[in-house]
């Protein structure tokens, strides 16, 4: 199981990479493994608001579907358009090409509620 040390994690299996006041988010290696082959990802519109723990989009796999929840609040400033044509990169490269949304963070303190890699490892058991 790949759990990069430099990322933050939500209990709902989103990862967050923080650079300045921008959070890039996606779903974890564990999450993509549980979902199976991802066939499309519905993402929010650029400019829309993200509210922590509220649905931001959906990740559809062949057998099942999961909400993408916002791990942090803010404004959506970019989405990964590449997932339209190649949703399978969510499976093959969940922390890289498979990123989903970039959010301009509105409340930096919310980051404290996220887990580090060790805590996430424990969370998924």
């Amino acid at each position, binding site marked *: 199981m790949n759990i990069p040390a430099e990322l933050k994690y939500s209990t709902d299996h989103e990862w967050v990479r923080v650079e300045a006041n921008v959070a890039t988010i996606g779903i974890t290696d564990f999450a993509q*493994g549980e979902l*199976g*082959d991802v*066939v*499309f990802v*519905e993402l929010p519109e650029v400019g829309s608001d993200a509210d922590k723990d509220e649905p931001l989009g*959906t990740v*559809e*796999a*062949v*057998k099942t*579907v999961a909400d993408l929840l916002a791990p942090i609040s803010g404004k959506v400033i970019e989405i990964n358009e590449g997932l339209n044509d190649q949703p*399978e990169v969510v*499976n093959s490269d969940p922390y890289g090409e498979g990123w989903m949304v970039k959010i301009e963070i509105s409340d930096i303190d919310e980051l404290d509620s996220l887990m580090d890699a060790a805590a996430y490892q424990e969370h998924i058991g």
Partner: protein
Amino acid sequence: MNELKQTPFYEFHTGFNAKMVDFAGYLMPVSYKGINFEHQIVREKLGVFDVSHMGEFFIEGGGAEAFLQNLTINDVSALEDGQAQYSAMCYENGGIVDDLLIYRFSKDKFMMVVNASNIDKDFSWAQTHLLPNVKLTNRSDEFALLAIQGPNSRELLQKLTNVKLQEIGFYHFAEGELAGKSMIISRTGYTGELGFELYHSPKDSKDLWQALFDFGAEMGLEPIGLAARDTLRLEMKYCLYGNDIDETTNPLEAGLGWITKLDKGNFIGRNALLQVKNNKVSRKLIGFRMLERAIPRHGCSVYVNGEKAGIVTSGTHSPTLKEAIGLAYVPASHSKAGMELSIEIRGKQFLAKIVKTPFVNSSPY
């Protein structure tokens, strides 16, 4: 909560890193390397499925045929020795108890293969309709079952047996040795591809699996999980009990008129089904394709002209077509290919179109 049962192949599944799930009380592999990969390998080459959870009943004695003729909806008298038949059991009201296969070994020996989740229900239903001179036994624990499916399946199996597989026609079977073990070699399956199912003793399971991979690995043989089994059968519009058919649906509306032999004589459910036929079926199970990006799932509502008019029974993203497909019950008056539907998925309505089935052009013949 009962302990989950394991099939004799459990260690092979975990050895292949399968994701295991509880299915009908059995710990079964849902996928190994990924649904799309597994699906495609069966359509293009060959794959092996552990379906040991299926139930096997034996029906023996002078009254066996008469018993099955009353219990099931297809015409058992049409079977010859070495032939299998797709059929179903119905309640008096025409609802479906289960769909199943019947194998005829001789005029007084048959095997019935039923869905794992229905073994107990089916056995007690059959027992309550027992006739004199019939011995009914549940031998599910005496059989393990592997399905080898795909265009190259016969080529692989022929390396392991002297039985002339080319001579076993679709829905026929032979008893013989394969990989040195005696078994029932059945030209049946649930994928729409050329394929065989091997009913064998659980004590031979490990050797059989090993032999299949010893000879099959170089041909690209892969283990296939229940998830791909579902997408493969759905592309062919093969019904899944508990999803597309159950005690609230009858075989005529489910598109199973071809196995419902109303003129074979009396059988359980016949009167109700005759009535359904005379009044014309009010709803039909149809296949549809999504015209917008959303995947329908079991239980989604179907709307016609703004009115709720039906329900989705199965839905998935078709690995072959690369688009979302599904099965739904819709009013018979709105069931023709080309007609549009709206499917409510996660609170929103999406357009879909009724299409001819099967969804893909595979053929197991």
